């Protein structure tokens, strides 16, 4: 049921992410209230449990495989909100580290299994088990039914997402771009397996664990059964789950973990989880056809599928680490690794949230407020940069048009250059220009080099490991190969971005904004546009300042902490006021322009003149760019 990258169109993926988003944020908000010691160990427990349960593959009719998800038991013990998060975390770790389920389809997989699964399980369990005491037989029955229906709803949703692809997304020749099988195939193929074996597995897991908990520690069933009579299990003060109680569940997890290699016994793959290469492989093709009502798959992997399937290469693809020879041990090691990652992840999350909950007085500014003041500071920084722009350096003396064209030419040169040495020379030249223009290297370091390294480095890093070529070394533990080509690719990416960034910053630092604007006039940009851009730049500050003052005024009048909902409402109100103020401002400014003779046509003073020296400088910049492109071929 883990839809891989490529089986859903990007638009479908976007819609599914969009659908999942409110549930995630809702679950997080609900959880924050109870995220004390109580839920954290349980959440990681069930995330880990769900992760491991999904590794137990069962043979399904038609030659494919399926598995339980664990959404039933997670929902019953944790409640739907925490269950949504627990299963989403399990799915995230599977997708990121083990290549089970795609990155683009992560939203869809979470929506099917974590969100719909948890909510359906919750509804069914509350409905069927209503009023029964915590240790009643009916709770076991309710749990089984809840798990069975939940996993089938998830499978049906996945089948629908698969099945609508060929109807919606085809290339010019009419061949499907993503999942090739229509609803008439996907629904039976998915549902037959889940209505029988996989559903049964979920039923047994859920009912069995509830029955076990009834005897071991009924208080763990309290969250989703608040109305149950207290006969068997008196409510404890503070409702805190004692650690020993949860320890029993950890024990179960450990046992399940140890026997994970059993999950690998089943050969074959799940329906709709074939790799792009499987479409070319006769054996795999036979299996695909057998599982899909004997409809042969297209002779080549659909184009969109092929393209998207290489979106992400998981470090331990298919739960089989490359350095482990024994497949069973590899599977077990993967399960251990996954559980470890999940526990760390949940601990990290709880750290973050708890740190916030602990300091209610030191109220943190909301995200938007923070971004806003950060933006204001950054832009004001841009203005302070004008001090540098007005100092007497080399670049400062250049005509702005020369600087604009020259910078563009040099950036083109560094994008076009295919030799590292040329890129390095261009970067060196940029440093020389910076030195001659009194730009401190520290400014470049902080505002370009480190920032660009952070962003590009993140993008370039996987290239070090993923680019095929001559192997240089292997990373210990994870065993990723480092290739010469990979290092070269990463170096190129980073150096290119650094060089282009340095030139852009030099242009910005050494040219007052108004001069850049005026030089636009030279390139025949209409005067009205130039005026509007200039005014936007100017009034943006004013509005941002008003906004910041409004936020500050609000904060000054607040005592204590605001509920998130109240904070959002206030923010919306502020945005409304700001819009009103900006409308007022624009009509006032228009009046002010009219009062000074503006009649709908703008006249600007163009007081910059190209001197012979400027032509010379322009020539020099062009020459260097051409040379760089020539040598960098």
């Amino acid at each position, binding site marked *: 049921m883990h839809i891989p990258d490529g089986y859903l169109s990007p638009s479908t993926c976007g819609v599914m992410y969009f659908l999942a988003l409110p549930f995630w944020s809702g679950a997080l908000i609900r959880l924050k209230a109870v995220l004390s010691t109580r839920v954290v160990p349980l959440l990681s427990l069930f995330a880990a449990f769900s992760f491991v349960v999904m590794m137990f593959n069962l043979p399904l009719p038609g030659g494919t495989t399926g598995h339980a998800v664990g959404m039933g038991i997670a929902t019953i013990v944790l409640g739907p909100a925490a269950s949504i998060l627990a299963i989403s975390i399990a799915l995230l770790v599977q997708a990121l580290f083990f290549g089970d389920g795609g990155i683009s389809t992560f939203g869809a997989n979470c929506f099917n299994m974590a969100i719909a699964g948890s909510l359906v399980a919750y509804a069914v369990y509350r409905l069927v088990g209503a009023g029964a005491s915590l240790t009643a037989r009916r709770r076991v029955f309710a749990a089984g039914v809840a798990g069975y229906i939940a996993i089938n709803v998830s499978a049906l949703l996945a089948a629908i997402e698969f099945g609508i692809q060929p109807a919606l997304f085809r290339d010019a020749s009419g061949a499907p771009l993503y999942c090739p099988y229509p609803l008439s195939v996907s629904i039976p193929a998915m549902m037959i397996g889940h209505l029988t074996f996989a559903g049964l597995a979920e039923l047994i897991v859920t009912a069995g664990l509830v029955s076990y908990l009834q005897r071991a520690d009924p208080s763990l069933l309290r969250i989703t059964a608040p109305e149950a009579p207290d006969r068997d299990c008196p409510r404890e003060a503070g409702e805190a789950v004692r650690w020993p109680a949860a320890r029993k569940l950890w024990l179960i997890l450990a046992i399940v973990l140890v026997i994970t290699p059993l999950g690998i016994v089943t050969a074959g793959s799940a329906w709709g989880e074939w790799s792009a290469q499987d479409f070319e492989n006769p054996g795999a093709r036979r299996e695909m056809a057998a599982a899909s009502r004997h409809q042969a798959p297209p002779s080549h992997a659909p184009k969109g599928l092929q393209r998207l399937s290489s979106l992400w290469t998981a470090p331990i693809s298919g739960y089989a680490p490359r350095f482990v020879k024994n497949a069973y041990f590899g599977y077990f090691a993967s399960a251990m690794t996954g559980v470890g990652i999940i526990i760390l992840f949940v601990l990290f999350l709880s750290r973050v949230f708890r740190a916030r909950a602990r300091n209610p007085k030191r109220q943190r500014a909301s995200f938007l407020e923070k971004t806003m003041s950060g933006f204001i500071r950054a832009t004001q920084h841009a*203005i302070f940069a*004008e001090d540098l722009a*007005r100092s007497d350096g080399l670049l400062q003396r250049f005509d702005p048009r020369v600087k604009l064209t020259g910078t563009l030419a040099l950036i083109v040169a560094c994008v076009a250059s295919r030799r590292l040495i040329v890129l390095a020379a261009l970067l060196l030249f940029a440093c020389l220009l910076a030195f001659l223009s009194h730009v401190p290297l520290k400014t470049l370091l902080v505002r370009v080099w480190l920032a660009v390294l952070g962003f590009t480095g993140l993008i370039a890093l996987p290239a070090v490991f993923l680019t095929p070529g001559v192997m240089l070394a292997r990373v210990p533990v994870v065993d990723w190969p480092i290739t010469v080509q990979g290092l070269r690719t990463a170096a190129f990416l980073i150096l290119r971005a650094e060089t282009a960034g340095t030139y852009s910053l030099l242009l910005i630092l050494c040219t*007052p*904004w*108004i001069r850049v*604007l005026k030089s636009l006039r030279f390139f025949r940009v209409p005067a009205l546009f130039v005026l509007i851009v*200039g*005014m936007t*730049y*100017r*009034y943006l*500050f*004013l509005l941002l300042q008003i906004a910041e003052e409004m936020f500050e005024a609000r904060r000054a009048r607040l005592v204590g902490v605001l509920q998130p909902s109240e904070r959002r409402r206030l923010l919306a109100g502020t945005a409304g006021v700001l819009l009103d103020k900006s409308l007022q*401002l624009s009509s*006032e*400014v228009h*009046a*002010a*322009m*009219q*009062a*000074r*003779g*503006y*009649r709908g046509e*703008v*006249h*600007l*003073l163009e*007081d910059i003149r190209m001197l012979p020296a400027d032509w010379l400088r322009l020539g020099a910049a062009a020459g260097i760019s051409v040379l760089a492109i020539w040598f960098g071929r």
Partner: protein
Amino acid sequence: MNANRPNSPVFHLEDVVFRYGAVTALDGFSFEVNHGESVALLGANGCGKSTLLRILAGLSFPAAGRVTFCGQALTAERLADASFSTQFRRRVGLLFQNSEVQLFNATVFDELAFGPLQLEWPRDRIRKTVSDLLEVMGIAHLKDRAPHRLSGGEKKRVALASVLILDPDILLLDEPTAALDPASQSQIFDLLISWRNSGRTVILATHDLDNLEDIAGRCAVFDRGRIVAEGAPLDILHDVALLERIQLVRPHHHKHEPGAAQPHPHPHLHTGE
């Protein structure tokens, strides 16, 4: 258009009604200003002073009533005429209450050059006029600065300069000294006094009663969209009951050292004695 003739009305308003939605800002308003006069408009916040100035500047047009400028009707249609509006804009300058609104250019130099550019003066003349005025106003050192980075007093001076650049003979000033420090205020007052003596027409809205006699020959007192009193500054300033009614002064405790001369240029209510 008429040349400056002393004692002929520059602006003549008759039964002017102006509404902002349901709110009536001017309600059957009649008013006249002659050449060379300097008139202070007094009144509490929201009494219609700014609205009147916008109408005089040809930015807003009344729902009913008649407005004439030098004997010609001042209407939206009239201002659509290029030659009329060029003349009108050059002769009538409006200083906005909010300098932020008035300063929309990227540098102080551009700010001053904006008006002349729109009236299509020759470029060389613009450069010279702007440089001269920057010197006269004592803001030459701000020439390349961004107007929005200036202090409140500097902004006001730049805004004034951007109005004066066209050498208008009728100045409309909306609370020119509000929110300025005493030094900046007195600079503005000095300018106002010099214009008054040079025969320009000045109409200013103000709350400032301290310097009224120096800057205005006539006061018009507003209340709720109508003129409730008109007269020489001193007559108005001595009508304490009126000033109190329109909320320009209010009783407050106020003591004098025994034997000290009464130093106030305007009346106070000495309730504390």
